[in-house]
C-alpha cells in the first residue's frame, strides 16, 4: 500500500520560518510530468500520483525495473544510469519517447541511492527545437563578443527572451551581502520595468541558494497548477529532489509570483567561481512550459555567460591592478620629488578615486587639509579628527556604526571610509570616502502595477522587497572589496616608502643646512670680531659701526629664517595675522629701507597702484625684501631694479625685474625648495642660504597667491599675485583710484 511521502511534523511555513523549509523534500512534483523512483535494488520505491494515468502504467511498491513496461530507449538509459556510480554530480541523461499520443522528454539521474526517472510532456515540435539550436549558436557567439558585464547581461536577457518567449527576462546580480539587483531586463512593452530593483538577501533563503548552485535551472510551468503528491512506502522519507526537473516549489515562492501576476517562471543560476554570482529570472504572465531541450540550451548559454563574466572580471581586476600601479608609480614619484606633498597627492585625486571606486578624497598633513569632491572643510576636519585615536595604518569603515560616537552627524552623507596613515610622524592621512548606499542607488520609480499584497503581506512584492532591502542597508556604504583592499595595502606600503625617502632627503638637507648655517654664521661673526678688535686697539676704520650692524643684520636674518623653517617643519606655520592692508604702503616702505641700506643701487618705481589685500604686512614685507635683495645680489649693478604694482583680474600683481642672466634650468626647477643643493653650493648666495625664496613662496601661497619666475631678456622677473581683499568692493574703489592718479611714481 502506498501513501503520500511528505515532510513529517513540520509547522506551517510562514515568512519567518521559510528559511527552514526543506524545499528539496517537499514530496510534490509539478503536474506537467510524472516521476518514478527506483531504490538501490532497482525496484519501484516511489512515484507521482499522476504516473499511472499519464504514463499508462500499472505501478506497485517493489515492482522490479525488469517488469516495468518501458520503451527500449528509456530502458537502455535507465540501465546505464543505474550502472553509474552514485556521485554528487548526478548528471542528467535524456531521451525522447512517446506514450500513446503524448510526447515526453524522459530525464534520468541518480542521487542518494535512488534512480529518478522523470517524464516531462513535450509540447513543441522537433522543427522548433532544431531552430533553437541554430539560435543558441548565434547567441553564444554574440555573448563572447561583449566587452562589459553590463552589455553582456543586457544581451543575455534579450537572447533568452528570444529563445524562450517569456514576457519578462531579468538578470539579477548578487552583491557582496547576497542582496540582489536587477541589472538588465528584456520585457514586453506593457509590463512595468523592474530594472534597478534591489532585493534583500533573505528573498532567497539559504536552502534555495544551495539548490540554485547544484541545480542551475528550474521551471515552474504554471503557478496555478496543483502539485502532485509522491506516493511510496509508509514511513519512508520524502524523495530528495535537489536535482529533479519536476520538483514543485515552496508555497511562499508561489505567493510571491502570484503577487506579481506571474503565471510561469524559469530561473537559471549564474555560477562564477563556485558562487551564486547572479541569476536569470524569466516570468510569463500566463502558463508556459519550455521544452527540456530549450531549457538545456538556455542553461548552456548561461554557462557561457558565467565563463565570460569570469573572464571579464579577471580582466577588470588585472586592469584595475595595472591602473593602480600606474597611479602608484606616479604618486610615489611626485611624493618624493614635489615640494608640496599634499598638492602632489591631490593631483592624482581623480585617478585614486577611480581606482578605488571612491566618491571623494581628503588629504591632511601638519593639520593642513585638502579635499577632492563634494566634501566641505568642516566635514573633512571632522573626518580627520575621527582618526585621531586610530593606531592602524589602514582604517576601513563601511557602516555608520563603525565611526566613533564623537563624530555624531558631522560626517554627513559619508559612511564608507578607507584611510591611509601614510606619514604618522606628520599626521599624514589620505582618506577615500563613499556615500551611504541608499544615496548611491538610482531607483527607477515604483512599479505600481505589482503592488498586489498576498496573505503573507507586502514583502513578497518587488516594492516590498525593495523597502526590505533598504532597511537592511541603511547606514552602510558599498564595502571595500578584496581587490580594492589589496590595492590599498600596496599603495600604503609605497606611500610609507615615499614618506621615508622624503624624510631621509629632508633630514640630509637639514643636516647640510645646519652645517651650512654654522659656516655662514661664522663669516659675519668673524667680521664683528675683527671690528671689536679694532675698537679695542683704538684703530680708526671707516664705517666701523655700519659694518658691525650689517654683519649682525645678516646673522639675525639667517637665524630668523631658520626659525621660520622650523615653524613650518614643525607644523606650526608662519603664524600670520591678516588684515586688510594696502600693498602699496608695504612696498614703498620696504623700497625706502632698501634705498637707505644700498645707496649705490637704483630702485625704479615704474607704476605703483593701490591694492588692498587681506594680508600680513610684516610677512609681505619679508617677501618684497627678499625679492629686492635677490635682485640686488644677482642682478647687473649697472641697471636699475624695476618695481611695479598693479591690479589684474581681482589680483594685486607685484613684479620686480632686474637685468641679469636667466636662472639656470636646474636651479629654476627647485627655486622654492627649502634645501636646494644648487643654491647652497652657490657662493653668491652666501647671505641667504637659499631659504629666502622658499619662505617667500610659503608666505605668498598662504595668502592664496602665486609667485612666478620668468625671463624676458635682459630681465629676470619675479611676479607675485595675491587676491584682492573681498572688502575692496566697488564703493572703495574710487578712493583708491583717485589717490592712484596723483601718486604713481
Amino acid at each position, binding site marked *: 500500500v502506498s501513501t503520500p511521502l511528505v515532510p513529517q511534523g513540520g509547522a506551517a511555513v510562514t515568512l519567518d520560518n521559510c528559511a527552514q523549509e526543506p524545499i528539496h523534500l517537499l514530496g510534490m512534483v509539478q503536474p506537467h510530468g510524472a516521476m518514478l523512483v527506483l531504490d538501490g535494488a532497482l525496484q519501484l520505491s516511489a512515484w507521482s500520483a499522476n504516473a499511472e494515468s499519464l504514463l499508462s502504467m500499472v505501478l506497485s511498491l517493489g515492482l522490479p525495473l525488469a517488469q516495468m513496461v518501458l520503451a527500449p530507449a528509456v530502458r537502455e538509459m535507465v540501465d546505464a544510469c543505474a550502472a553509474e556510480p552514485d556521485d554528487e554530480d548526478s548528471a542528467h541523461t535524456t531521451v525522447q519517447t512517446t506514450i500513446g499520443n503524448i510526447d515526453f522528454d524522459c530525464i534520468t539521474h541518480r542521487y542518494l541511492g535512488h534512480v529518478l526517472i522523470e517524464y516531462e510532456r513535450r509540447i513543441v515540435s522537433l522543427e522548433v527545437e532544431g531552430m533553437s539550436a541554430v539560435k543558441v549558436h548565434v547567441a553564444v557567439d554574440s555573448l563572447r563578443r561583449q566587452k562589459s558585464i553590463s552589455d553582456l547581461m543586457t544581451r543575455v536577457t534579450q537572447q533568452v527572451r528570444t529563445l524562450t518567449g517569456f514576457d519578462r527576462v531579468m538578470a539579477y546580480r548578487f552583491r557582496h551581502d547576497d542582496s540582489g539587483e536587477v541589472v538588465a531586463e528584456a520585457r514586453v512593452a506593457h509590463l512595468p520595468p523592474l530594472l534597478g530593483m534591489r532585493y534583500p538577501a533573505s528573498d532567497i533563503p539559504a536552502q534555495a541558494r544551495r539548490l540554485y548552485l547544484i541545480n542551475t535551472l528550474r521551471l515552474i510551468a504554471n503557478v496555478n497548477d496543483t502539485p502532485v503528491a509522491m506516493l511510496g512506502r509508509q514511513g519512508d522519507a520524502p524523495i530528495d529532489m535537489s536535482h529533479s526537473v519536476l520538483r514543485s516549489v515552496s508555497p511562499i515562492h508561489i505567493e510571491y509570483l502570484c503577487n506579481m501576476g506571474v503565471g510561469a517562471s524559469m530561473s537559471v543560476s549564474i555560477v562564477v567561481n563556485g558562487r551564486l554570482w547572479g541569476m536569470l529570472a524569466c516570468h510569463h504572465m500566463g502558463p508556459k512550459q519550455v521544452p527540456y531541450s530549450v531549457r538545456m540550451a538556455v542553461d548552456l548559454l548561461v554557462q557561457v555567460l558565467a565563463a565570460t563574466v569570469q573572464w571579464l572580471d579577471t580582466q577588470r581586476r588585472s586592469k584595475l591592478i595595472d591602473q593602480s600601479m600606474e597611479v602608484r608609480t606616479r604618486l610615489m614619484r611626485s611624493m618624493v620629488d614635489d615640494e608640496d606633498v599634499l598638492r602632489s597627492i591631490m593631483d592624482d585625486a581623480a585617478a585614486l578615486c577611480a581606482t578605488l571606486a571612491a566618491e571623494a578624497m581628503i588629504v591632511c598633513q601638519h593639520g593642513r587639509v585638502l579635499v577632492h569632491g563634494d566634501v566641505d572643510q568642516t566635514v573633512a576636519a571632522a573626518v580627520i579628527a575621527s582618526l585621531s585615536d586610530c593606531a592602524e595604518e589602514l582604517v576601513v569603515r563601511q557602516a555608520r556604526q563603525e565611526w566613533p560616537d564623537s563624530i555624531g552627524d558631522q560626517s554627513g552623507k559619508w559612511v564608507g571610509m578607507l584611510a591611509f596613515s601614510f606619514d604618522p610622524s606628520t599626521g599624514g592621512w589620505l582618506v577615500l570616502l563613499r556615500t551611504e548606499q541608499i544615496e548611491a542607488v538610482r531607483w527607477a520609480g515604483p512599479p505600481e502595477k505589482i503592488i498586489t499584497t498576498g496573505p503573507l503581506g507586502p514583502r513578497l512584492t518587488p516594492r516590498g522587497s525593495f523597502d526590505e532591502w533598504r532597511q537592511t542597508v541603511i547606514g552602510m556604504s558599498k564595502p571595500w572589496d578584496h581587490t580594492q583592499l589589496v590595492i590599498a595595502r600596496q599603495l600604503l606600503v609605497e606611500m610609507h616608502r615615499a614618506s621615508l625617502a622624503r624624510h631621509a632627503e629632508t633630514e640630509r638637507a637639514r643636516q647640510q643646512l645646519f652645517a651650512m648655517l*654654522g659656516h655662514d654664521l*661664522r663669516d659675519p661673526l668673524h667680521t664683528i670680531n675683527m671690528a671689536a678688535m679694532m675698537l679695542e686697539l683704538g684703530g680708526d676704520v671707516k664705517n666701523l659701526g655700519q659694518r658691525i650692524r650689517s654683519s649682525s643684520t645678516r646673522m639675525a636674518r639667517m637665524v630668523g629664517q631658520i626659525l621660520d623653517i622650523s615653524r613650518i617643519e614643525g607644523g606650526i606655520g608662519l603664524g600670520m595675522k591678516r588684515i586688510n592692508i594696502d600693498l602699496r604702503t608695504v612696498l614703498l616702505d620696504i623700497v625706502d629701507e632698501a634705498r637707505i641700506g644700498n645707496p649705490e643701487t637704483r630702485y625704479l618705481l615704474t607704476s605703483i597702484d593701490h591694492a588692498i589685500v587681506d594680508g600680513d604686512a610684516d610677512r609681505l614685507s619679508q617677501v618684497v625684501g627678499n625679492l629686492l635683495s635677490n635682485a640686488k645680489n644677482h642682478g647687473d649693478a649697472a641697471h636699475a631694479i624695476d618695481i611695479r604694482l598693479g591690479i589684474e583680474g581681482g589680483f594685486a600683481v607685484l613684479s620686480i625685474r632686474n637685468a641679469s642672466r636667466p636662472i639656470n634650468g636646474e636651479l629654476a626647477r627647485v627655486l622654492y625648495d627649502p634645501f636646494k643643493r644648487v643654491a647652497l653650493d652657490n657662493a653668491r648666495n652666501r647671505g641667504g642660504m637659499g631659504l629666502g625664496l622658499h619662505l617667500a613662496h610659503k608666505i605668498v601661497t598662504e595668502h592664496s597667491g602665486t609667485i612666478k619666475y620668468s625671463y624676458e631678456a635682459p630681465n629676470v622677473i619675479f611676479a607675485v599675485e595675491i587676491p584682492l581683499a573681498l572688502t575692496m568692493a566697488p564703493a572703495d574703489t574710487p578712493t583708491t583710484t583717485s589717490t592712484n592718479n596723483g601718486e604713481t611714481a
Partner: protein
Amino acid sequence: MSTDTEFMRILLVDDNRDSADLVAELLRYTGHETQTAYDGIEAINIAAWFSPQVIITDLSMPNMDGLAVTRAMRRMPNLCDAAIIILTGYWNAQSDAAKEAGVDVILLKPAKLETILSGVRSASKIRRDMARTQDSDAFFKR
C-alpha cells in the same frame, strides 16, 4: 703685539669686503704691509705687482674660489714661495684638496688676531723650510 715678527707684504682676499678690510687694517696696525682684493681675479692682478709674501684668502667666493686662487698663484713665478693661508667659516674645508692646491695653513673664522698672526708665522716657516729642503736637494743633485 709680537715684536719678533718680521714685517711682511700680505694680500687679503675675501668677497666679504668688511672682513677683508678689517683684517687688512688690523694687520697693517701690527706693522704689516697689506692689500685687499674682493675676488679672485682682482687678487691675481694685485699679486702680480704687489708680490705678497703671505696671501690670506677666503675659501668660498663667487667665480673663483680660494683653491682656484691658490692654484693660480702657485703658477706665478713671483709667488711660488709665498705662504698661502685659507681663512674660512667651513671647518670641514677640504683639507686634502687644499694641501694639493698648495695651501699651507687653514684658519677658521671667527679667528682672533693672534691666531691670524701665528698662522702667518707658521705658514711662512713652512715655506722657508720647504725652500731650504729644495735648496739642499739642488745641492746634492749638483
